[in-house]
């Protein structure tokens, strides 16, 4: 009997998804759907928070007042994204601090792109233009995700990401209008970020274990390879327009398909970074862990004070 019930619930759930009716926190959802979302949204939140670090690395060295302010505002947006994504995770019954502990223990993943170092000012441009650009490709379809709170969070995130992408591109454009050193700085930076940016879309479709189920649940709308192709098609003409060379000898426009053909990603590097052995994995997690540990006494004080005040108010009333 119970099994039959569950089957009915699952069928109704899938039916709702198929009819594009949003799933809300109190609605029935299969356990696996809930788990997938918790994993995906918390990873997304972690990516925003860890993603602050490579950019924060240049806040104190930003080249002028305007760039400094814009960079700070951008990083603040990212912390804000983290905050409401953690809230979205909590609508699924997960605890924010638990998911953060998973990040610190290495159990939870975040976007591998943030495990690459930021070595020049041009990297601030590349992160905006390429990394946020790739994130937008991934996230715009998430605005139609079947889970209501995630979809709504994504609408706001995407608006801000498109501003981030533009400011990044503007940094790069400014460099390409500049001196020989500035142009070289931009090209050198593109050479380092291009391939990691393509890796942001994940493994090839054939190797992606979550894609089929996520598409059925309408969490995901396009496959990894489709999104990667869209990104390449949009970005290559932008690079050409400002005089940058994409570091891929196999890159070529295919008249027949109307898309760019491009070279093979170094999948060994991809998996190495995913598994925690990229250039900055250790540093990024250590920085987050240190922030939490150093802040422990502050949080304890805030709690202790709140308790004292509650007691005093009770006495007074």
């Amino acid at each position, binding site marked *: 009997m119970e099994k039959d019930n569950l089957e009915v619930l699952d069928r109704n759930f899938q039916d709702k998804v198929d009819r594009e009716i949003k799933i809300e926190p109190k609605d029935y959802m299969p356990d696996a759907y809930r788990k997938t979302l918790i994993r995906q949204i918390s990873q997304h939140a972690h990516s925003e928070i860890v993603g602050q670090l490579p950019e924060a690395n240049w806040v104190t*060295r930003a080249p002028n*007042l305007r*760039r400094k302010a814009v960079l*700070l505002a951008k990083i603040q947006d990212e*912390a804000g994204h983290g*905050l409401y994504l953690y809230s979205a995770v909590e609508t699924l019954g997960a605890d924010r601090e638990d998911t953060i502990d998973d990040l610190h223990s290495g159990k939870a993943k975040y976007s591998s792109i943030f495990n690459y170092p930021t070595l020049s000012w041009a990297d601030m441009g590349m992160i905006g233009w390429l990394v946020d650009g790739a994130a937008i490709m991934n996230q715009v379809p998430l605005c139609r995700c079947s889970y209501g709170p995630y979809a709504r969070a994504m609408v706001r995130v995407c608006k801000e990401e498109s501003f981030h992408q533009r400011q990044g591109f503007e940094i790069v454009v400014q*460099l390409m*209008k500049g001196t020989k050193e500035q142009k070289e700085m931009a090209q050198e930076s593109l050479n380092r970020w291009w391939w990691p940016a393509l890796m942001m879309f994940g493994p090839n479709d054939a190797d992606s274990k979550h894609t089929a189920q996520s598409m059925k649940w309408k969490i995901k709308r396009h496959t990894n390879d489709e999104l990667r192709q869209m990104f390449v098609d949009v970005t290559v003409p932008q690079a050409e327009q400002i005089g940058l060379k994409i570091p891929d000898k196999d890159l070529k426009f295919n008249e027949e398909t109307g898309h760019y053909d491009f070279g093979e990603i170094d999948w060994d590097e991809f998996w190495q970074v995913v598994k925690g052995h990229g250039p900055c994995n250790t540093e990024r997690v250590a920085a987050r862990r240190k922030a939490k540990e150093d802040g*422990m006494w502050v949080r304890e004080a805030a709690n202790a*004070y709140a308790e004292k005040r509650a007691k005093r108010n009770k006495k007074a009333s």
Partner: protein
Amino acid sequence: MTKQEALFEFLLRKADDSLIIGHRLSEWCGHGPILEEDIALTNIALDLIGQATELYKYAAKVEDKGRTEDDLAFLRLEREYKNVLLVEQPNGDFGKTIVRQFFFDHFEHLFYEGLVNSKDERIAAIATKTIKEIKYHLRHSSEWVIRLGDGTEESHERVQESVTALSRFIDEMFYQNDVDEILIKEGIIPDVKLFKDEFYKNIEAILEEATLKLPAENYQMSGGRKGVHTEHLGYLLAELQYMQRTYPGMEW
């Protein structure tokens, strides 16, 4: 000293105060003790850098030598920065950052309340915008001083230590010389002497609520307004000026 020179010097002092403490706060970006505070500190840093920008712009105009706000912010020698010593002190732990901000915000609050009535229209306009931001900063730092002071034994000890360490930089905010005399006479800036008692009354009230105390023995430091700084500023400027010094004359 002409009125123009005095005005330029005054604008640099206040712009440098905001820039340097804003820069210090921006060092917290991505490392705050909780996400909400990461956002709050970054937000305050952003306000302060915005204030500095407006003040430098006006300073550049007053000076009228073709320098821009960025030239003033990034391309002076250490001795030419006129911020008070308080703002360049390293962040330390979160409590120390909060105490530094607390002293600064309380001064700025009273100062900018006076500045709103400046006879210089542009300064009055900047002050009118700035005072709104300062009121928020003031509430933020004061609430944290109370929370940390009256929180746990550990937080009380830590924050008391920061109050003791940083209190020697308070009086410098009330420094005056002929720059101030000229501008006070012109009705351009308020006379800080007139609100020094109020300042101490305000901070002592909050410290008392936080179960904290200013130290009985208190040797005050100064030098910032004359460009003689603590050892910390040089390192801060090395980072701040890195791009402008490494790639001179380029647009970013």
